């Protein structure tokens, strides 16, 4: 049920964005991309914390907001000094997403009692 809610809200978000039919020309498109990847990182991180019952909405929101601020600041500086920092931001967030997703997968498999994880402790 909870997965369905998250999934449906994502799909309805896609639908709303499609219906809004906005185009951000120029470099604005890259900032939207950075925002998207920051959001995805926060979502995956939130899901992971929720699954292990360590979720705190204060941490969640503040983490997201600070990530966006830092990412935008870096991207803006990179824009102005001529380095493609968008790419590095994307790499870092993608890395975090992969980490969190693999942690989720390990948790799932461990809960199912797969034999590979019998000797391991923690995640």
């Amino acid at each position, binding site marked *: 049920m909870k997965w369905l809610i998250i999934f449906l809200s994502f799909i309805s978000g896609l639908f709303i964005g499609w219906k809004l039919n906005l185009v951000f020309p120029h470099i604005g498109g890259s900032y939207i991309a950075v925002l998207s990847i920051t959001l995805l990182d926060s*979502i995956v991180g939130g899901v992971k914390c929720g699954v292990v019952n360590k979720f*705190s909405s204060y941490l969640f929101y503040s983490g997201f907001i600070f990530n966006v601020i830092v990412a935008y600041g870096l991207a803006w500086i990179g824009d102005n000094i001529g380095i493609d920092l968008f790419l590095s931001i994307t790499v870092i967030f993608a890395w975090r997403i992969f980490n969190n997703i693999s942690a989720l997968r390990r948790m799932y498999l461990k809960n199912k009692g797969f034999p590979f994880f019998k000797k391991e402790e923690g995640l």
Partner: protein
Amino acid sequence: MNSNKLYDELFDSSNWIFPVSLLSLVSGICISIGWMNTDNRSKVLEKLDAEQRVRINFGNFDLSAEYNKQLEEVKKLREENTKFQNAVAEKTGHAKLLNESLQELKMYAGFTQLEGPGVLITLKDFVSKERQSALFGNINYEIIHSSDLLDVANLLWNAGAEAISINSQRIAQGSHFWCFGSTIRINGVQTSSPFYIKAIGDPDTLFGAVLLPGERINQIMTLGNEDMVKVEKVDKIIIPAYSGTTILKHAKIPDGESL
């Protein structure tokens, strides 16, 4: 009571479904706004470097093939248009007169094929079997540049040429020569050496004007090599129609009073 419970559940700091769903919604909106498709791709990429944009577009689809296809289409449609105009003109006398003047204008503007006597000039880069290194001599003189084509076209117009084409690109309103690395773009179409310049006019006058001492062709022959230039008088030469765009975005015919 019930709503209170909902409120508590929604804003309970340890409840993770609501915040995560909220951000999922926002992220969905962002992703679909940032999604690039063929309609908004050019707008989104406007501020990128030209080089980067070219790379991205090459990854997307082959633009030049598309362009050539469109040119073929334009040519076909224009021929059909001429046919239709002729067909309409056969019906009535007035329309016939109108059509005659229209065809005359089209001929003048370069939208029809033309044939007549003239000259055929061949310009090509100098290729030497003995010397293949750029270290000796001035290689600059041994290459045909876009400015050469421009000068030759000017020379021909000045000598009374009535129609000019270079490598089957008609020189008409808005024609341009643009140096594009190893190729020259004529009317936006990439061409390269050898350049076949056809011109309709009085063959003797054109021939004499083109080979005038001190003018560009003469310079190419003296500074470069005589093999680079070939000028022939021709009794009958066919010049293709202009195939570029004719859409005017900003210009329009003024109202009567301002005339």
